[in-house]
């Protein structure tokens, strides 16, 4: 027993972790921690690039910036990328705030795009342009709402798992698009020729300007809705505690269904902008994983639509910058993915230092002497 006591003694932990009092964390501390995290991420990925790709990291970062801001075309591409990603992120955010894990934005956007393309294809010639635009909008938004409504109803009335349900709905949407292309593309190539003649109008001579402006308006609208409306308040209460919601008489089922309808409607807008405003055609990969990346955008911004502008820019910057370095330095594109991963890891990891602090044991020092 005595021997044991002595041997145990050496096990005094050097470090232990203590939770921070959130009241004492100042905004500039948060800023410093995040800035250090990004710098550290750049440093670590720089070392990795030097070792693995034998390239000068400063040039590599330069090429990343160049890939995003290098020309007015690139800047427009970046703005379009941010706008589309942000739009899908805005769609999932109300549901996430309610702790309804909608991971089916991919399918909700795709099915809206399909509805939009079908309208363009079959009704394009039958009505005046203005009316066609209205019909496209209504049909796309409705399609997104239906795709979101199904899991919401099942969740509200039979408490099914919304994560699985929305995920599965993605595959249904993909298969529907595949079937559509097979059935209605006459030449059998499976590739639908774009129909720009039925697309959304181009304003200011810039192809993406309309998308960017619409999403900017939408961002503010969603922010105001969540922060200042009675609906937004109900969403917060349901998300924080369903018991509290019941306690004050909120109809939880109604809020779940209503919020998912809004979520689906915004997905519908995203589908409309992607198909009607950008591609003028559809394929099974039109949404391109934005429905999943949006989850990250929303979480990183802690469900605040205004911060989401920054987080979607960050992700688009990393994506476009990585593509640029793979072409400029003929590095395998997986290096680019690794860099993206490292930067995200550091950004998410630094949250730990905002929540906790690490303390060096005083006991140990005493014991050593």
């Amino acid at each position, binding site marked *: *027993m*005595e021997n*044991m*006591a*002595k041997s*145990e*003694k050496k*096990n*005094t*932990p050097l470090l*232990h972790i*203590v*939770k*921070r*009092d*959130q*009241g*004492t964390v100042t905004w500039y501390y948060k800023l410093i921690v995040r800035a250090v995290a990004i710098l550290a991420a750049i440093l670590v990925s720089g070392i990795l690039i030097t070792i693995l790709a034998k390239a000068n990291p400063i040039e590599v970062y330069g090429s990343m910036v160049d890939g995003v801001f290098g020309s007015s075309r690139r800047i427009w591409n970046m703005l379009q990328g941010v706008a589309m990603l942000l739009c899908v992120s805005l769609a999932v955010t109300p549901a996430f705030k309610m702790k309804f894990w909608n991971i089916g934005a991919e399918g909700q956007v795709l099915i809206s795009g399909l509805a939009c393309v079908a309208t363009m294809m079959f009704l394009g010639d039958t009505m005046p342009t203005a009316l066609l635009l209205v019909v496209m909008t209504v049909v796309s938004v409705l399609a997104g709402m239906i795709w979101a409504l199904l899991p919401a109803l099942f969740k509200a009335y039979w408490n099914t798992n919304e994560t699985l349900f929305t995920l599965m709905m993605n595959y249904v949407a993909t298969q529907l698009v595949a079937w559509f292309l097979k059935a209605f593309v006459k030449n059998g190539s499976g590739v639908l020729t774009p129909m720009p003649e039925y697309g959304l109008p181009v304003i200011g001579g810039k192809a993406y300007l309309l998308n960017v402006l619409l999403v900017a308006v939408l961002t503010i609208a969603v922010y105001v809705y969540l922060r*200042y*409306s*009675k*609906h*937004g*308040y*109900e969403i*917060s*209460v349901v998300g*924080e*505690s369903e*018991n*509290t919601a*019941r*306690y*004050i*008489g*909120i*109809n939880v089922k109604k809020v779940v269904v209503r919020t998912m309808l809004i979520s689906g409607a915004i997905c519908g807008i995203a589908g409309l902008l992607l198909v009607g405003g950008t591609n003028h055609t559809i394929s099974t990969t039109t949404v391109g994983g934005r429905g999943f990346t949006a989850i990250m955008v929303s979480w990183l911004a802690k469900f605040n639509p205004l911060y989401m502008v920054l987080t979607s820019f960050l992700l688009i910057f990393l994506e476009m910058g990585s593509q640029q370095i793979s072409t400029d330095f003929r590095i395998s594109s997986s290096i680019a993915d690794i860099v993206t991963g490292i930067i995200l890891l550091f950004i998410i990891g630094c949250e730990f230092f905002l929540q906790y602090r690490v*303390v060096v*044991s*005083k*006991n140990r020092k005493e014991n050593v002497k």
Partner: protein
Amino acid sequence: MAKPIALECRGITKTFGRVVANKNCDLEVYKGEILAILGENGSGKTTLMNMVAGIYYPDEGQIFVDGQEVTIASPKDAFAYKIGMIHQHFKLVDVFTACENIALGVEDEGRYRLADVRRKVIEITQRYGFVIDPDKRVADMSVSEKQTVEIIKVLYRGADVLILDEPTAVLTPQETDKLFAVLRRMREDNKSVIIITHKLHEVLSLSDRVAVLRRGEHIGTVNTADATEGVLTEMMMGVKVELSIERSEPKNPQERLKVEDLHSVNEEGRPILDGVSFTAYSGEILGIAGIAGSGQRELLESIAGLHQLTQGNITYQDPKTGKTENLRDKNPLQIRDLGVRLSFVPEDRLGMGLVGNMDIVDNMMLRSYQKGRGFFLHRREPRDLALNIIEDLQVVTPSAATPVRQLSGGNVQKVLVGREIAAAPTVLMAAYPVRGLDVNASYTIYNLLNRQKEKGVAVIFVGEDLDVLMELCDRILVINAGRVTGIVDGRTARKEEIGLLMTKSKEEGVGEYGEK
């Protein structure tokens, strides 16, 4: 008679963020004694013992076992030094039997043989006089039986120092007596028993010495033989406090809420409420006493429109118009729309009454956010209300924009009770409103309830401390396994009488409705 010291703490300090839980605490326990650690809620009793048991690691200070300085970095270390703690919240596997739970996690050499475990368990029960069936599943046990399993678990691992955290909080007076008898037998067996409590009479009847903590500091240790309630209270509070609650006679009591023959079942179809009837009058405080989980929560929730009834009626009588309304099968919103001013302080403050991550202003809005026209929220009135409550009830908070989760328990409760009273209720229901609060905050709440009573509100108070119930309430309804076993006068009732009513129909299987 100088007994050897079993365990000693020297200069223990522990902080959580800004909060100092323990400051420079010294403490020693002898072999073969019962030491009570006394202090108000939040005085650092449990934190200090958690460091001895290896749950937390002290920031500063030393711990000695049998005179040797030791490092206890995990519960496993604590067991190696023969220290075992029985926590307030039991850590048992529901589907396992008593024996299986006891054997769980023991790293003995050789094969695992349940029969050996069983033999040893029976040996321990006989030695100390426990009453337990070693083959009973934990899911079928009452709270008191579960506690017994936890104690045997610790003894099975050979603990010489036993720490019990508020062991009597969930027990009836009769069960408490049995537990104390067991603890005394352990003392005779030369074990050291540390009991954490804030109940003075328990300290006086059981312990050999009392260590008093106040705001994380060790104020002093006295021999129980030399102590009186007055001395201990003074040590606990710092100043002498008059421990009595004013109780006025009900003025002009009128029937306000009549509950008739309420029945309800849980998900498995077992009865939770089993024919509850009573009447609450204006201008009186009706207490509800019972063992935890006897249907108190469901009773209040069914009145508030949150719990589905299978049978029965709830009739509310409007004091102004004299009209009656049946509240059964109405949700909280419909009840409010009827003009019934029913306020409810639920047991689960941050999980039901308030939203922890929202600030005080937004929490004020919970009851009233739908007021005012239009699509948008109106935050001005709730902000004024929040500022008023902070000032009137002396809520300690950096600002009205602080998330309530960051406030201390007493301040959280002030915010909640403040909001519910601000609605000018005619019926006010409060479930365990002082649980976890220190004495000062508790008295603030009692005073608030008393003032509501004087205003003619029908107050329904669910409590766990019988002394408080008997000092505060005009009448006390005793509930047991979903049934009313008696309604007694708060001024004349005896504690033993209430205790008996709480346990009366035990053979009907109280354990079935025990805590999940």
